[in-house]
C-alpha cells in the first residue's frame, strides 16, 4: 500500500504542473492586475504605476514570469498578497483552521443525518417513514444553499436568536478557554448545518438504495439461515457492505466541501478559505487567488487518492499494488 501511495503521489506531479500552467495563464488573461484594483488611476502618477509594474516583474515575458512564480511556489513562497501586503501563505494559514473546522463539522452532520435516515429508509423501504425522509431530502436538495443559508440566518439567528449572525468566534472570549471553544462551535454550527444538509440528501438516498440492494443478496439469506437476528443482519452484514461506496465519497467530498464553503462562508461572513477566495477575486489579489486555486486542485487530487486508499482498506476484495 505504501508503494501504491508513493506511485500515486508521483503520478500527481505532472498533473499539478499542468494545472499550475493553466492557473497562471488564466490569472494573466484576467482583465487588469493587482495594481489596477488597488490604485486609483485618477490621482496616482502613471509613471509610478509603470515603475511598480516593472518592479513586480509584470513586464517580463510570460514564461519567465511563470518560472519565477513556480520556483517561488515550490519553495513555499506563494508571493505577497497584494491586498493584505503580507505573504499569501500567512493569509491562507490564518484562515485554514476555520474552513477545516467547518468542513469537518458539516461532514459529520452529513454522515450522522444520512446514516440515521438512510439506514431507517433502507430497512423499511416504501413505508410512510421512508417516503417522509425522501420528501424532506428532495426538498433540501432542491433548495439552493444560498437560499437555505439566508433563511437559516433569518430564522435561527434573527428571529430565534439561537445562533450568531456571522464570524467564527466571539471576540470577547479569551483564546484557549472552554468558553472560547464553545463559542467557536456555536459559530460554526449553523453554517455547518447548511453546508452539511446540502449533501445529506444524496448520501441518504444512496445509502438507502444500497441497503435495499444488499438486503436482496444471497449472503443475507445465508445469514438468516444461520439464525442471525434481522437487526444484526442489517447493522453488521448489510451495513458493512453499504459503507464501502460511502467511504470512498469521503475523499471526493473533502475538496468539494471547500468549494461549497465559498458560498456558505460568504453568506455567514465566516472567515475561511471560501470567503478569502471570493474576496481575492473582487480585489484582484492574484497571488492569493493562484495559491488558493493550486491548493484546491491539490486537495482534489489528494481527495481522489484518499478515496482510492480508503477503498482498499474497507473492501477486502480490492488490493492496492
Amino acid at each position, binding site marked *: 500500500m505504501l508503494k501504491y501511495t508513493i506511485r500515486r503521489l508521483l503520478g500527481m506531479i505532472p498533473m499539478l504542473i499542468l494545472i499550475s500552467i493553466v492557473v497562471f495563464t488564466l490569472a494573466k488573461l484576467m482583465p487588469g492586475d493587482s495594481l489596477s484594483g488597488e490604485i486609483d488611476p485618477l490621482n496616482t502618477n502613471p509613471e509610478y504605476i509603470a515603475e511598480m509594474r516593472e518592479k513586480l516583474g509584470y513586464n517580463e515575458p510570460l514564461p519567465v514570469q511563470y518560472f519565477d512564480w513556480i520556483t517561488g511556489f515550490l519553495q513555499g513562497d506563494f508571493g505577497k498578497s497584494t491586498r493584505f501586503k503580507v505573504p499569501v501563505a500567512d493569509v491562507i494559514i490564518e484562515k485554514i483552521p476555520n474552513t477545516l473546522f467547518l468542513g469537518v463539522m458539516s461532514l459529520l452532520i452529513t454522515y450522522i443525518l444520512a446514516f440515521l435516515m438512510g439506514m431507517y429508509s433502507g430497512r423499511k423501504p416504501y413505508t410512510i417513514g421512508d417516503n417522509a425522509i425522501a420528501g424532506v431530502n428532495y426538498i433540501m436538495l432542491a433548495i439552493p444553499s444560498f437560499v437555505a443559508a439566508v433563511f437559516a440566518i433569518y430564522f435561527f439567528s434573527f428571529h430565534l436568536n439561537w445562533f450568531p449572525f456571522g464570524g467564527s468566534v466571539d471576540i470577547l472570549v479569551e483564546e484557549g478557554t472552554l468558553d472560547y471553544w464553545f463559542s467557536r462551535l456555536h459559530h460554526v454550527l449553523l453554517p455547518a448545518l447548511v453546508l452539511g444538509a446540502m449533501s445529506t440528501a444524496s448520501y441518504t438516498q444512496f445509502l438507502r438504495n444500497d441497503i435495499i440492494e444488499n438486503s*436482496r*443478496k*444471497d*449472503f443475507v*439469506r*445465508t*445469514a*438468516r*439461515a*444461520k*439464525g*442471525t*437476528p*434481522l437487526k444484526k443482519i442489517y447493522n453488521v*452484514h448489510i451495513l*458493512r*457492505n453499504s459503507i*464501502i461506496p460511502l467511504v470512498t465519497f469521503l475523499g471526493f467530498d473533502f475538496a468539494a466541501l471547500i468549494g461549497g464553503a465559498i458560498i456558505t462562508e460568504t453568506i455567514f461572513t465566516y472567515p475561511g478559505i471560501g470567503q478569502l477566495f471570493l474576496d481575492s477575486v473582487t480585489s484582484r489579489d492574484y497571488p492569493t487567488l493562484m495559491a488558493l486555486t493550486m491548493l484546491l486542485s491539490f486537495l482534489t487530487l489528494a481527495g481522489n487518492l484518499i478515496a482510492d486508499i480508503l477503498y482498499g482498506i*474497507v*473492501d*477486502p*476484495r480490492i488490493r492496492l499494488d
Partner: protein
Amino acid sequence: MTGNYTTKKTTPLLQVRNLQTGFKIDRKFYNAVENVSFNVDRKQIVGIVGESGCGKSVMSLSIMQLLPNGIGKIRGGEIDFEGLNISELSDKKMNKIRGKEISMIFQEPMTSLNPVFTIGYQIEEVILNHESISKKEARLRSIALLKSVGIPRADKIVNEYPHQLSGGMRQRVMIAMAIACQPKLLIADEPTTALDVTVQAQILELLKDIQETNDMSIILITHDLGVVAEICDEVIVMYAGKIVEKATVDELFNNPKHPYTDLLMKAIPKMDEDVEKLATIDGLVPSIINMPQIGCRFANRCPKAMPECLTVTPQLGEVEPQHEAACLLYDESWPAGEERQREGVPVL
C-alpha cells in the same frame, strides 16, 4: 440404500402436510407450491428432483421460513419439526431453530458468503448465535470444522475472505457453517449444480460422510437423478409445484410410474454417451401465473396424455406398496387410462 419407509413407529423428524406457498404478484397470490406432503425420517436422505421452476427452492425456503419478506407466504398446511409446527413460529423463535436444528446450504457458493467478512467470522457467527462460548473457542471450533470438511491449511483459511477461495472450497465452507451446530436436518438446495463434475462428486461424498457421522437427515434438492441414485434413500419428484411421484430410490429407478419421471430418467447423462445428445423434455414448466387450475399440469408435455388429463386433476395415490404417483394412468377409478397405457397410444 433401502429407506426406512416401512418402520415408522416414532414420529418422523420432519412432517410437511399440505404445504401451500404462494407469491404475491400484482396484488394477487399465485401458488408456487401446492398440497405438498412428505416426511423425513431421522438419518434419512430424501432427494427432491424436478426441472427448474418446479418449486423445489420455494418448498425448502418455506421450511426455513426464509421466503422473500412480504412477497412470499405460506398460505396453508403445517410443517412439523420434531412434533412442533414451525410454520407459524415468530422470527425470533425461528432464529433458534435456523442454523441449530435445521441448516441450509445453497446453490450459489460464489455469492452465498458475505464478501467483506473472513471465513472464520462467518463460521463463528453461527456457533455464537446458538452457543454461549468464547470467541476464542469458536475460532478453534471453526478451524476444526474447516478441517473436517476437507479444507487444507484451515488455520490460514479462517483469516481469508471468500473471494480468495474457489467455488468448491466455498461450498465446503458453507457446509462447515451448516454443520457447525450439528443440526438434525440439513437442507441442501442444489449444492453441486454450480460446480465442476469432479468437485460435485467430492461434495456429495462429503455430505454423505457427514450424514453418517453426525446422524443427520438431509433433504437434497437437485435436478439430476444421477445424484439422487448415488446417495438418497427416498425420492420425491416434483412438477409445477406438486409432488407427482414418491418412492424409495430402488423402487423409483426400477419401476418409474409417472411419465414425467420416465422422461427425467432418460435425461440422466450416461458416461459413454455424447453429452450433446442428452435427451431433454420438450416444452417448459408452466409459470405460476399460468398454472392450469384443473387437469394434469403435465398434460401439455406428456407423451401419454389423454383427453381426460385436461379435465380431471390426478391425485397422488399409492400405485405399488410404498410408491405413490399422481397420474390418471394409475387411477383405478379411471379404467380408460389403464387400457390406453397398455396400448401405449398417445392420444393428444
